[in-house]
Every structure is written in C-alpha cells, then in structure tokens.
C-alpha cells in the first residue's frame, strides 16, 4: 500500500532542505471524488497532500508552465521541481526527456504506484452513486472502491469504476522516479488495445458515422490540447494566427498566410484538427487519458491516440515513454519497416 505519511514526510524534507523549488502534487478536491492539483511551497502545507483514487490528473502538464515561467526569469531558481507521478505520468516525463524539452535534473520525481488498481473515471462513479455526493473515496485491499456518502459506505468493484486507460495500462507503476512509494506489483494486461479493436471491427461506413457523430459535437475549445503534456509547442498549426507579426508585416502578408485549418467547427475542419492532433502525438502520447477526460462534449479522443499507439507497436515495434534515450517514432526508421502499401 502507498503510505501517504511517507509521501508527506519526503515532501516535507525536500522543502525543508530546500532541495526543490516547490512540489506539484494532489490535494483534497471540492467534490468528494476528484482530487485537485496542488502547488506546495511551504513545508507546513505538505500535510495537505493526498493520494487517492481521484488523483487522475496528469500533473506533468504543469512542467510546461514551469518551463515558460523559468524562461522569463532573469535569475531563475535552478532547483528542480518536485512532482508526484503515477505510472502513465512518469512515461510522459520520459517523453519530455527524450524530446529534450526538460532535463532530468529539472524534476525531482515522487513516483506513486497504482498497485492493483489505478484511478477512477468520475463519470462512472457518479453513475453508480445515482446523484448522491461522495465525501470520501478509497481503495480497499480487495480491489473495491469504498465510497463514503451521507448514507454510509458502499463498495464498488474496481473494474466497474476504473478509468478506461487504467484497465488498458501496461505499467501501473512509475518507470522513472527519484523516490518510489507503494509496492511494485507486476501486473499485465491482455486488453491493452481493447477499446481500439471495438472500432476497428466496424465497417468503413460505420466508422465514419461513429466519428462523424462524435466530431460533430466538438466545439473546438482546444481543452484537449491545453491539457496534454506533449502539446507544448508555442505555435500550433491549427491556430491561424500563429505567426510573428512585426512592425513591417503588411496587411497583404497577413492575408496571404497559409490557413491550414479554419477555426469554425464545421465537419471537415474538425476532422482535420483531430487527425492532425492524433498524428502529432503519434509515438508521444502515453495514454494518460487527460484529453478525453477534459472534453466538455465527451468525445472519445483517446481512441485516436490509442490507435496510433497500437500501430506504432505492431508496425514498428515502438513503445512510448519507457526509454528517454530512444529515437522518436517519426524521426527513426528501420530497413524492414512495412511498405506493402507502396506501389
């Protein structure tokens, strides 16, 4: 079991000894199920840290902000940032290291094992509670979610409330860390790509209809992009205004700029946005599921990334986020890469 007191103690020491700038972790959320990201600077605040089934956020996304903030500072504090990560999140760190977006000593990693469970899907839990408000949630040792509401406690089997990505997760514990909390449990899954297979088995028309229905909902709020730790580019191809306008940029030049994608959420543009988003994350997405979680329209975006994760593995024997020294998926090749589709 993960001992929260150990986590708090380590965090306290790190801050007391001034080994880290601050710690990004989880604290109690306001609705009983979800935890909330916390940025802890004062040693006495480490007591507010929590570790529970509602810690689904991928905190590595905040390393983007940290990097930007640091770049603006004249005399930046060079100490690392402490960060609490789960298995999936730790793979994001590996990708950021692989892409040289961060350096290993920019972070002090507090790795927490998911052991035999993972984190919950809030929507699944809400359905189970039928309108009742949870006050507290925790895992027991038999893979049950113990939910405390005003009417007492109920037990729900983990498999009914786990986030989809946890069911399909191949690691369950951090692959890179400075301190490890909990037990390293070897847990394998035979269902790593189950959700993808469901769609693959549809006919071409059914596939199109499925995605059309989903993407028609998209309002292009770009929450999926904002939350992703790997969507860190300063300029994104989908933004039509993303070019430097200087004093001598003429109106003509502005008008002539390439507009790859229109901003309006019409079907053609939204499809292209989502295809490009998925392609740009090929070999980089570590399936933290955050993009799908934050989508206000419940679009199953994760299925797109997961498909490419699957193809990367089956076509190119490439797995994401385990080795920070490997070449990235699209900047490497093998002589024997498949080419039966080429004429």
């Amino acid at each position, binding site marked *: 079991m993960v001992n929260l007191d150990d986590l708090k103690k380590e965090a306290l020491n790190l801050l007391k000894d001034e080994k880290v700038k601050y710690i990004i972790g989880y604290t109690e959320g306001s609705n009983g199920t979800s935890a909330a990201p916390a940025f802890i600077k004062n040693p006495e605040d480490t007591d507010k840290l929590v570790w529970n089934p509602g810690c689904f956020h991928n905190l590595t996304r905040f390393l983007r902000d940290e990097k930007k903030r640091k770049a603006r500072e004249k005399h930046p504090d060079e100490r690392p940032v402490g960060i609490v990560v789960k298995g999936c999140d730790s793979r994001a760190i590996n990708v950021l290291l692989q892409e040289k977006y961060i350096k290993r000593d920019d972070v002090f990693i507090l790795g927490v094992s998911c052991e035999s469970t993972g984190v919950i899907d809030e929507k699944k839990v809400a359905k189970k509670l039928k309108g009742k408000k949870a006050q507290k949630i925790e895992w027991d040792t038999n893979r049950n979610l113990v939910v405390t509401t005003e009417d007492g406690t109920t037990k729900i089997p983990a498999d009914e409330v786990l986030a989809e990505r946890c069911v399909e997760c191949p690691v369950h514990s951090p692959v890179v860390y400075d301190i490890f909390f909990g037990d390293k449990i070897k847990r394998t899954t035979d269902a790593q790509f189950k959700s993808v297979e469901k769609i693959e088995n549809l006919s071409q028309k059914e596939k199109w209809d499925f995605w059309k229905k989903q993407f028609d909902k998209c309002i292009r709020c770009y929450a999926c992009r904002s939350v992703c730790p790997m969507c860190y580019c300063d300029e994104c191809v989908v933004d039509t205004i993303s070019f430097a306008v200087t004093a001598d940029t003429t109106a003509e030049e502005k008008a002539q700029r390439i507009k*790859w994608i229109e901003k309006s959420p019409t079907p053609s543009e939204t499809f292209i946005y989502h295809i490009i988003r998925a392609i740009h994350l090929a070999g980089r997405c570590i399936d933290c599921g955050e993009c799908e979680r934050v989508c206000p329209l419940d679009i199953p975006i994760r299925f797109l990334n997961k498909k490419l994760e699957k*193809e990367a593995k089956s076509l190119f024997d490439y797995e994401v986020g385990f080795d920070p020294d490997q070449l990235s998926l699209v900047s490497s090749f093998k002589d024997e890469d498949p080419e039966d589709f080429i004429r």
Partner: protein
Amino acid sequence: MAEEFEPKIVAFLCKWCSSAGSDLAGVSRMQYPPNVVPITVMCSGSVSPLYILSAFNKGADGVLVSGCHPGDCHYIKGNYYARRRIALVKELMEYIGLEPDRFQMSWVSAAEGIKYTKIIKDFVNILKPLGPQTNLRRSQ
C-alpha cells in the same frame, strides 16, 4: 447523358526522382489521364501529413505521394521517414472511416516514366467508381 466523373488527383512528387519521372513521361509523349495536379516537393520526407489532409480539404479526390526508391533518396533517408509517417496516416484515415484507396504512395525513379503513367492510370480507375471526395472537403 451525364458527364463522367473526372477525379482530381493531387500528386506530391519529390524533385529528384518522381518529378523527373513525370517529366520523362511528358517529354516522351506518353499518354496518361490529365487528372493530376503535380506539386513538386524537395523530398517525399518533406510531405507533412497536413499537406495531404489539406489537399483533401481543398478539393482533391485522391492524393499521391511519390518519392525515390528506398536507398535512392537524394537526402539519403527522407523516403524512409516518409514511409513510416505515411503508414501511420493511412492507418488513421482508415480507422476514421475515410476511403483508404483515396490515398496512395509510390516509388518512382527518374527513369520510370512508364511506371508513373501506369500509377496515374490505375489511380484514376480506382477513384472513378468512388465518386467525389466530400468527407474532408471544406464546405463553401
């Protein structure tokens, strides 16, 4: 009688092989369908997936990416990168329910004018029964 549908193909041809191959077909006066809009790029490895999607978005019924044969790329490795990247695009397009046949890739060397004409002829024949591509076309 209704006019037969004539598909519009956008072909991204690398400068050093495929584009030269298409030139050879032209200067040798080989006959092939006039449905192609060729766009010369420096290397098949420089074709971003966004070019392909953008071509569909702006009205292409089919898109071809063509480069030098493996081992012959002017930039040594460009076509190997392209091969990987385009395999992924193809898989994803199919997964989303787009007709995978609308998107092709080929290796055409500077000497393969005949191969180039054959690829275009075949592509046109594949595209005709599929009809116009509307899924990704920007609505006016």
